[in-house]
């Protein structure tokens, strides 16, 4: 029985989830093993990092909980200092790699998500304003976006990070790292949102429903938010998903270069940076496991984003 054939009352009874399940996108999701797999892995990783406290033997961010004599314990052996079992081995400080990876992924994902939200809000606002108001403001915003896009994102992030370091007092660096990283990565990615939203807004603002809204006397701001924004949201969702993977990688890159999270609160990038010192000396697990975790996270989010892009693209249906 098709959805359309149901009586309206029955359809209203069905929940949002069920309706989503039966929608075009739901169908596309159900029939794509890649999307299901990617979503499942992402979900498992997110849940594991959120509940890291309950499923790890050690808090790797608490220096007092570490035992230096456990340092360099190979995977699957007990530490020489504490006697604790290290499934994925221990790093140079006696940190359990399994715990460190979960806590580190949490830091990476948090910074990734926060910076995506930051660049999304910034880019969408600027894109809406540029597309809807036009004129000189549009020219100004879009030229800034052009300039921004001519630099690699990582370079912009490094620049922002460097300036912020100079402005903030050194004693506050450690506390501020999270915020600074979020802003640095966020500022390097807003231009794509602004461009996409501006293009969609230019199309939408010529449509009759926008004219209608204006005719009834609404000001520019409510028209943008209530009428234009919902109709340009599809592409934003796709960019945001793919950008999340990029932001996680960018965070890792910054931390790998040593400008990101401090070694006392390692993110995945910091763990990889620490690990690469021991590549020649045979302690492969310190580098390998965080790298695998990073690849898995980035790949599964990316695959999910790819699927979403295809599913929302009317030309591919």
């Amino acid at each position: 029985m098709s959805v359309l054939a149901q009586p309206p009352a029955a359809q209203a009874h069905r929940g949002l989830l069920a309706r989503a399940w039966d929608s075009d996108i739901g169908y596309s999701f159900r029939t794509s093993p890649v999307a299901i797999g990617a979503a499942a892995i992402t979900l498992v990783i997110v849940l594991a990092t959120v509940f890291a406290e309950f499923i790890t033997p050690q808090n790797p961010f608490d220096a007092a909980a570490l035992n230096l004599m456990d340092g360099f314990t190979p995977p699957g052996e007990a530490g020489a200092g504490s006697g604790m079992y290290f499934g994925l081995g221990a790093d140079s400080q006696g940190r359990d790699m399994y715990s460190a990876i979960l806590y580190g992924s949490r830091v990476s994902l948090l910074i990734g998500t926060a910076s995506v939200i930051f660049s999304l809000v910034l880019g969408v606002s600027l894109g809406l304003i540029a597309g809807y108001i036009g004129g000189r403001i549009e020219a100004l915003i879009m030229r800034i976006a052009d300039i921004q896009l001519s630099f690699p994102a990582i370079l912009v992030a490094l620049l922002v990070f460097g300036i912020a370091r100079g402005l903030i007092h050194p004693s506050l660096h450690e506390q501020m790292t999270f915020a600074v990283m979020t802003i640095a990565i966020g500022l390097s990615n807003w231009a794509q949102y602004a461009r996409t939203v501006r293009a969609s807004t230019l199309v939408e603002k010529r449509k009759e429903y926008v004219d209608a809204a204006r005719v009834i006397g609404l000001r520019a701001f409510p028209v943008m938010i209530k009428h234009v924004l919902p109709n340009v949201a599809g592409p934003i969702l796709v960019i945001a998903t793919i950008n999340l993977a990029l932001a996680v990688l960018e965070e890792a890159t910054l931390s790998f270069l040593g400008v990101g999270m401090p070694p006392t609160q390692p993110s995945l990038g910091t763990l990889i940076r620490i690990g690469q010192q021991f590549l020649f000396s045979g302690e492969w697990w310190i580098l390998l496991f965080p790298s695998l975790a990073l690849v898995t996270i980035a790949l599964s989010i990316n695959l999910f984003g790819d699927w979403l892009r295809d599913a929302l693209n009317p030309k591919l249906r």
Partner: protein
Amino acid sequence: MTNRGKFVIALLAATALATAAADARQLKWARSGDSLTLDPHAQNEGPTHALAHHIYEPLLHRDTQGKEVPALATSWKITDDPNVWEFKLRPNVKYHNGNAFNADDVVFSLDRARQPTSDMKGLLTSIDTVSKVDDLTVHIKTKGPNPLLPNNLGDLFIMDKEWSEQNNVQKPQDFKNKEENFAVRNANGTGPFQLVSREPDVRTVMKRNDSYWGIGQVPLQVTELLYIPIKADATRLAALLSGEVDFVQDVPVQDIERLKAQKNLQVNVGPENRTIFFGMDVASADLKGDSVEGKNPFADKKVRQAMNITLNRQAIQRIAMRGQSVPTGIIMPPFVNGWTKELDAAPSGDVNAAKKLLADAGYPNGFNVTLHCPNDRYVNDEAICQAAVGMWGQIGVKVSLVSQSKAIHFPLIQKNPPETEFYMVGWGVPTFDSEYIFSFMYHTRADKYGSWNATRYSNPEADKMIEQLSSEIDKGKRDATIAKLWALFKDETLYLPVHHQTLAYAMKAGLDIPVDVSNQPKLKYVSFKTN
């Protein structure tokens, strides 16, 4: 075979022979950073002096064990006037350009090194005048008796007066203001090697000085010496493993074992004249970066002792340093005059005793404080700080760690007033005497003294004793004062010593370059073992 074929083979064989003969005596030397300048008086910095020792020579220098040996001077003694030192110079020494070396050059060089743009002037503050007696005798008059003057001359290179005047380099390069002069990329010394070409940060090529005065006394088998700075650890080691370079300094501790296992390589390990330790503000009324209001926990000796005995130096040695360090209880390397085994004894990590001391001091639950640490200066500096932070956490002292580049870290200590209340430093002692440590690390901070003392410690009585050391001629009395000062400072626990650093040199098998305690390998001593 045709005649032509025979000719080609003969030619190839001849080429091979010629190359083999030339290659056999070439030495490619790599370390992490380049010399900052060839001007021998512009920078008082380890790697800069290490390269300069091959081209220029001082009056006397230190051998690999730190012992003073004659170079351009053959002997030196205090004259009947206790304020005047007499240096007898080596005869028949020639510069690379053929000029003869004589007393005029020594007077010129010591005057040059005392000019405002010189970075060596801090070592020569006691000198009043330098005068020529005859061609091979120089008198150095000091402002008061200075029995330790020769100690300060080990890196003080002698330049040719005529060459310097010809090339207008009578003044040292003003390094701070990025000045360039002829002596920055050109050199004319008396040393065992002669400069052929130099590209800063890429390579410096030197050839053997065939008229070196020391031929016959030192092997001097290297005919061509290439100095190649390679910053990245992995790249530098890869260059050694692939045979691209022959000798590597600054070997990361974690890679020593792997290199030792290679049959075609040799690794020499030895102690360096440098101690790593933590310092803290022991005198301010209140710390800005701590959790205790209106009080400075570090001002209490019991707190300092508690933190000192908490440090498990053996664990740091085993894990953070892979065995490549010597745990210690004093901030003085073993080569230094004043060092004793008793002072050096390191307390081992005793958490319970430390907790008790901390409770006695009124901090049963510990406190929070911020530690500043460099991350690119000493061997595994950041890892040591992290490990120490964990150990202090076990007695309730919660330390938040700020680790940053040495370019940001050191100014925190040197600024007046210092901008750190808890910090890591490593201290080498080029004069091999305790006075150097006292005047930089323990003397109250005043213009000439205490420039590295960020502890705010001030003890006028001790200051007076430190100042007297520089003019005390009686060695017995002087050593007694040094011992008294160490006993006082060790009891005060102003610094928390960690270990003496060890150095590792890796080289091709057949070369045997001993570790130099000042980390200035002198390659004129190298001999190739015949295979």
